[in-house]
């Protein structure tokens, strides 16, 4: 759907014990650790930010507003690197 986010097809990545290591089209490799790995998993298919927060809240049992406050900066960073894009 318009406004949904997804992984950029060009991004290369590996799952490690310390998190998910991404090599985005722009910039150097970056590690996303902790719940960032869950975000990355959820972005395997196009997802809205609201759905993403709901899924993380369900998976972790955490507070939705706290999760949303954590997720948005991460998504902004990943978009800036070209690792996450708008779904067509």
């Amino acid at each position: 759907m318009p406004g949904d986010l997804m992984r950029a097809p060009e991004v290369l990545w590996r799952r490690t014990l310390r998190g998910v290591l991404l090599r985005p089209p722009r910039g150097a490799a970056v590690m996303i650790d902790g719940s960032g790995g869950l975000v990355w998993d959820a972005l395997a298919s196009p997802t809205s930010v609201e759905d993403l927060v709901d899924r993380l809240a369900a998976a972790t049992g955490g507070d939705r507003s706290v999760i949303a406050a954590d997720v948005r900066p991460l998504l902004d960073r990943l978009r800036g690197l070209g690792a996450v894009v708008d779904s067509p």
Partner: protein
Amino acid sequence: MTPPHPVTVAAATHGLPRSVPPPGPPDAGDWWRVREEVGRHGLAGLLAAAYEDGTVRLTDEQGEDVAHGQVRAAATALRIEAALVTAVDRLGRHGISVRLLKGLATAHLDYPDPGWRDFSDADLLVDPDDIDRAVALLTVDGHPRDLTERRKGFDRRFGKAVTIYGPDHVELDLHRTFARGAFGFRQRLDDLWRESTPFTLGGCAVHALVPEDRFLNACFAALFGDAFPRLALLRDITQLLTRSDLDADVVVQRATRWRCGAVIAAALDVAARALGWLPPSPLVPWAAAHRVGWRDRALLATYPQFGGSYPLAMLAGTVVVDGIGAKLDYLRGLVLPDRQYRSARLVAGRRPEWRLLLQGLAWGRGRQ
């Protein structure tokens, strides 16, 4: 050679139906050895997976070492994949198709997680008719090739591979065949281009060999890559044998057509001894029953793993090259390479090949 530490073997067999769990964390004195072996055998990803699911038990400090090694191996793999995507895209835009070989292809197609298979370079199969153009396209930006061509036309007609240090200093090996020497010349290269296994890497459509050819490639790589095969290469053989869609009849047909049954039989034997087990497959009894004739024994003996050397294996390849004219051209390339090639070897600090050949012959006699 000292057998690998049980933790190293546990990593090499992790995820197989019959893996070999070690008794417990290695003591501090053994840990340095495990780290060295895991690095040398390309098992950082497998060890991390074995540690994560509890198959291999380690101290917290050792676990930190494992995590660090895994991240380093993963960063290397991603750097190589990025360079490879750039290279494949450039070649594709000029109408040159390639097939991905060895670690990078098998990581994505044969393992449950690509992170289980470390690799340190990218290997591509290029049609011999395209190899000169491919080298020119990939070196145009100033990326150097390793040495220069021995003589004009040698790469296309007789070479095993051309190494190019591509973007980000990534080693790109452009293969014409799987191996140097006699068994490389026996390959029927057209077999490898009839079909492929496509997949997507970094948004780029790439093609690898079909499982049967990946299996043959794994056997050649394990046997002829180093004097002592890396466990990651032997694991590739085992991993491919676990594939339900590996058609043993096709492998046997290929091996017969390429006259490389001795290679498959020897590679399976080495893998079984190193890993302690092979998955059930019709190829296992076939290989065990395969009779290796005197001629193939002699050809195998020219390779480093069997007491020979690379110059000796290359020289022995003359026996297999078709036609007197081609044999002479090949020998000329080996014995009388161009001055630029000889100079490049000297500049790179490599000894003259005739000296390596004599050394190989002497070592072979010593081993016998």
